[in-house]
């Protein structure tokens, strides 16, 4: 108890570090060691990600079910998505994940400015991803492909009229494209929501990183946030093929 109190004094902290002890001002009193605290934090984060997997799992289940039932509608719906933007966005997201990983390394080797730069890059790439996503959403809005009362199936019942090379769907199957678009919006929307939350946390991490909070051995927030960010990347790596690429095989 006494030593934990003492370490909150920066002078003592400095002295202790010189003697090679691992003692941090962020050490919470109910943990015996800093190591225990760090392990608990990252373990908790992994568990949280597990709950996230289950959260997305429900939607993946719905996708699996409806894709089996309404395969033609899913193919046509999927063809409406821009593979170019999707692929580019995938690269953007992977790059941001890479920057985040460099950021963690920078925090561990106590390079303050590199860490800040990497966090800023991650943020910018995240914003870029969301802007492109917004562009895609906007296009769907203009085409009346947002599920609900304004949903318009004429593009799928009469593709030739829109200049699309696609076999026309019978009206009842064309109606099922709505299910595809609902899943598209629900899944990418939830993914985007997670990114927005992530960007919010980044905006909180950046000033702290600049102040040097994470370049004196205390890297837990950066490390745990990186886990979260990578998780978002991984979710996208499943969404991208399922939503954009389902019909891109040699048969067609």
């Amino acid at each position, binding site marked *: *108890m006494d030593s934990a109190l003492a370490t909150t004094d920066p002078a003592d902290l400095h002295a202790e570090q010189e003697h090679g002890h691992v003692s941090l001002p962020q050490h*919470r*009193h*109910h*943990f*015996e060691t800093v190591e*225990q605290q760090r*392990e*608990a934090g990252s*373990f*908790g984060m992994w*568990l*949280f990600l*597990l*709950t*996230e997997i*289950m*959260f*997305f*799992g*429900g*939607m993946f*289940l*719905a996708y699996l*079910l*409806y894709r089996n*039932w*309404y395969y033609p*509608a899913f193919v046509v719906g999927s063809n409406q998505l821009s593979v170019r933007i999707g692929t580019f966005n995938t690269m953007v997201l992977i790059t941001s994940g890479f920057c985040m990983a460099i950021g963690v390394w920078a925090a561990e080797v106590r390079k303050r400015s590199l860490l800040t730069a990497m966090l800023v890059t991650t943020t910018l790439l995240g914003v870029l991803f969301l802007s492109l996503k917004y562009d895609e959403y906007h296009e769907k809005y203009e085409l009346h492909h947002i*599920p*609900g*009362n304004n949903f318009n199936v004429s593009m799928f019942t009469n593709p030739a009229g829109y200049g699309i090379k696609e076999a026309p769907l019978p009206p009842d199957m064309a*109606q*099922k494209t*709505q*299910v595809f678009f*609902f*899943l598209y919006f*629900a899944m990418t929307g939830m993914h985007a929501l997670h990114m927005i939350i992530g960007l919010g946390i980044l905006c909180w991490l950046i000033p702290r990183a600049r102040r040097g909070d994470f370049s004196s051995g205390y890297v837990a927030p950066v490390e745990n946030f990186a886990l979260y960010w990578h998780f978002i990347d991984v979710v996208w790596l499943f969404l991208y093929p399922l939503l954009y690429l389902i019909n891109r095989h040699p048969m067609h």
Partner: protein
Amino acid sequence: MSTAVGNTIVSLPDQSTAQLPKRHYINNEYGLLSWLLTEDHKRIALLYLFSVTFFFFIGGAFAGLIRLELLTPQPDLVAADTYNKFFTMHGLIMIFLFLVPSIPGVLGNFLIPLMIGARDLAFPKLNLLSWYVYMAGGTLTLAALVLGGVDTGWTFTTPLSTHYLNTHVITAAMAIFITGFSSILTGINFIVTIHRMRCPGMTWFRMPLFLWAHYAASLLMVLGTPVLATTLVLVALERLFGIGIFDPAKGGDPLLFQHLFWFYSHPAVYIMILPGMGVISEVISTCSRKRIFGYTAVAFSSVAIALFGFFVWEHHMFIMGVSSYSALVFSLLTMLVAVPSAIKIFNWAFTLQKGSITFETPMLYCFGFMGLFTIGGLTGVFLGSLGMDIHLTETYFVVAHFHFVMVGGGLMAFLAGIHFWWPKMTGRMYPETISKLAAVTTFIGFNLTFLPQFVLGYLGLPRRYAAYPPEFQVLNVLSTAGATVLGFGYMLPMLYLVWSLKYGAIAGSNPWQATGLEWQIASPPPTENFAEIPIMDHEVYDYEWLANKTKKEVTTVG
């Protein structure tokens, strides 16, 4: 100096000289803010205790109104749609705001760090946050009630909830969505704490079974609750925008809702019962002075229940047009859950065998649990059998089965635990005679309420109707009479426990002569729990170790 009187293990310090410790977690700080901003797991446990009790009595009031309406065959107390709102509120409040958070939130929060020899849970701030999230969900539920109620039943079944009702479904669904996050946060906190915060020497197989049970329940919370969250979001979207995921007219499938909902809500009943089983293990061991028979089997049966619990959800849907082959598989899996549950009951029974059994109040509640849970479990096997289920499903038989397991099981265990650890939480004993009376009253009232419902259900009375044919009145009157007795049985602890805060006998650190680490420190415990982190140098439930330790203490003092 202890005074063991008659046939009891309770040993209290000499009341003329005994005092509560000068400084403990309750008087460490004063003022409302010191409670609302506390990060101490013990204080958060008390916050939970107040709030779950509050919601319990609101949910109980609805139960009373339901039973009062069913006193006569006609819907004469309230109109049928008001009745629908009553049973929906009763279900929502009792399940999501009482049963799910009760034992983990109160006893789990209070005891997990004490039992594993830690100063707090791994994430104290998250713990406080989970209480606030719970309160936000609870407030929103009350808002749905005040705004005019919701009448979907607690299951939010589609298409009823999405297409046919004009009540506050979205408010209620969001309330439950939010409450779910409280349970996720608690689950994460418990798992990390049990993995990472155990004191030296506290191996997995030296952990009290209370911890194993909470560990298993936490796994269910962490894995199941997010699926409920997705489901409720989808229901809200369906209602708001008509997106069609559960709407057959637009290509959706209402059965998908049931799959997603029961994927959480079946494991949820294990979230409610497993912590209760943990309580029973502790009390039975202490009140029969024996190590739990088959400790390892009981520990693993908790995990097995958690595991099997995820693979039985379809038994809620046997009559809803699922494939008969999958129904066969799920029926078999449902029977399999009975195995770990039975392992627990048999092991408790063998623990009692040749034990020095004493009949204190927590033990009476435990006996109540064992009997009622066994009936509830066996009737569950009836319902899991495909042929029987077609006859019994959606009748009062299901209502009776569920209440035997949840109220006869979960609530009895909660009361057992509250009485057993009351001296640790407050430093004072509850009054023994009147609490025994309460335990017996509860048991009698419970059976009178719900045994007739088995008969009603077998005769074919469907649940969730405000009216019924007159020939069912006798059984319904019996049930309502029982509910009155039961209500009285639940009021009693409320009164005498409050009384005991001021007038109860001072308990001393270990009134039960129990072996857990939580009993080796002062009652109420100091804020930091342990002056120095203890070392677990003996097996769990080792009463010889305790006897030696006590002997040594006496010689040192003498």
